[in-house]
């Protein structure tokens, strides 16, 4: 008898079943919040910057709104998937026992992780898609480039969630979870190049910013919309994100296997 290989799909199905119960509040999160960002920051701050002394040259002839708005595709996916990689992981081990009941059935811990990350990718596409949908409503950000940007945004999100799933699973309790948001996600958001080009930062900070997955995600989304990506820059950014996804994926499989087969 050959063991079935459908495990990850079943885990994906479970996540989808849960999502069907909460999708309304989720949609609000992935459309309304970015809409507020885009309007508030993009248009509000934009009016200051565009009329400022270095307006056009700094942003390569983009308006601030055009510069800022596509970045939100990546940062939204990052924020939503980060949240999904913290307390919900704790829930799967402790509060709802989901991972335990899945591995009591014929699903392996490694398949639980794969299914979970497949779900994160799907959720990343949904959240990035929500933001892209908002951008369709503005003449200056409407374009076919939004489609690849959705994929790039989701990938950037999973580049966060994969290692974070491994990390959250390895914690004995959830006390350190808020620190991830405070000391990792918020700073990365601020230095991601979403709000201003990172070339404005001092050299050493610029160097650090280039190592964060979110900067690569922002570059990809912005470049896709404004058609400034080259084959080599795209491969470099995507490759960098894939490294994070792969490393996180393997690490998470290890941690889950250890924790679920005591």
């Amino acid at each position, binding site marked *: *008898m050959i*063991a*079935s290989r*459908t*495990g990850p799909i*079943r885990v994906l*199905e*479970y996540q989808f*079943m*849960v999502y069907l*119960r909460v999708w309304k509040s989720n949609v609000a999160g992935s459309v309304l919040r970015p809409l507020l960002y885009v309007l508030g920051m993009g248009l509000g701050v934009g009016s200051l910057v565009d009329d400022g002394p270095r307006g056009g040259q700094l942003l390569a002839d983009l308006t601030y709104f055009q510069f800022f708005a596509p970045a939100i595709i990546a940062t939204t996916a990052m924020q939503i998937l980060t949240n999904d990689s913290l307390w919900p992981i704790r*829930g799967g081990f402790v*509060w*709802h*026992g*989901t991972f*335990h*009941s*899945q*591995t*009591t*059935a*014929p*699903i*392996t811990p490694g398949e639980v992780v794969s299914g979970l990350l497949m779900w994160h990718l799907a959720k990343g596409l949904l959240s990035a898609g929500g933001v892209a949908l908002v951008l369709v409503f503005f003449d200056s950000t409407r374009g076919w480039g939004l489609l690849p940007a959705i994929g790039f945004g989701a990938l950037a999100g999973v580049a966060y969630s994969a290692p974070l799933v491994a990390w959250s699973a390895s914690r004995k309790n959830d006390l350190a979870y808020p620190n991830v948001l405070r000391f990792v996600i918020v700073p990365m958001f601020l230095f991601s190049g979403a709000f201003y080009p990172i070339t404005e930062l001092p050299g050493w900070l610029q160097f650090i910013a280039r190592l964060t997955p979110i900067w690569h995600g922002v570059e990809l989304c912005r470049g896709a919309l404004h058609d400034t990506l080259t084959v080599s820059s795209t491969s470099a950014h995507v490759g960098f994100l894939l490294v994070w996804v792969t490393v996180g994926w393997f690490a998470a499989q290890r941690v889950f296997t250890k924790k*679920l*087969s*005591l």
Partner: protein
Amino acid sequence: MTTASDAPLILARQLRKSFDDFEAVKGIDFEVRKGESFGFLGPNGAGKSSTMRMIGAVSPISGGELSLFGLDPEVDGKQIRARLGVVPQDNQLDELLSVQDNLIIYGRYFDIPYKIARERSLELLDFVQLKDRARSKIEPLSGGMKRRVTIARSLINNPEMLLLDEPTTGLDPQARHVLWDRLYRLKQDGVTLVLTTHYMDEAEQLCDRLVIMDQGTIVAEGAPADLIRTHSPREVLELRYPAGTNADRTQEVDGIGARQEILPDRILIYADDGEAALSEVHRRGSQPESALVRRSSLEDVFLRLTGRTLVD
């Protein structure tokens, strides 16, 4: 020559489980055959759940041998789990989903088509008398109801063998009897039952054969009636004296019956004729506050073999 049909479903030899340097299961031997109802009776920390998780092909063994359906859990864990139904000690029901969805998604984990999983979930909820709660959330259910949902869930894949870790612990007597009745029906349908318990009445009710576990080892094995016959005289006289004076009574009961146990809350006198033992107590002028003659039980076997009581 043994044929496939009478090969044991579970075969354990010198089975061990360690957590770091703590040994929870210390080399136990047992076999479970098809259609049998087999129990692990033991107090808290005896190693029952650790053993069940190894049998469930979830927890790797630390030593010895274990085969399930003739397969090695290390190699064929998935195939083994596909043929098992598992009721874990802590239910593991998903509070994010409704009662019925808990069953359906669990069925999907076994690759059961959605439509069939849906139909079966309703049949099983009917079987555990919870059909009217199909759409309910998990959280408002009572402990006994949750236990029944978990049992219904464990049956979604038509398992050949059902593993139940303390099926009725924490339930009131009525809820226990409802559960026992359902398990008895499964047994009649030919499902092999393997259960753990620290209730001797549950073990006597449900098990054809059982092992008594204590501190990671098996101290006795057999059918409940045989174990009692082998390890304990037929009757027990239970005496209660005013609190705190039991230790002083040793003289008063010395030599009565086959054996005496002085417990903190009562004195047990083991004898083939309990009434005769009671007459002797009275003849000696001893005045217990209450006296009761009952038949020997597995509790007495456990006390005899380990010097401790099962439930404390």
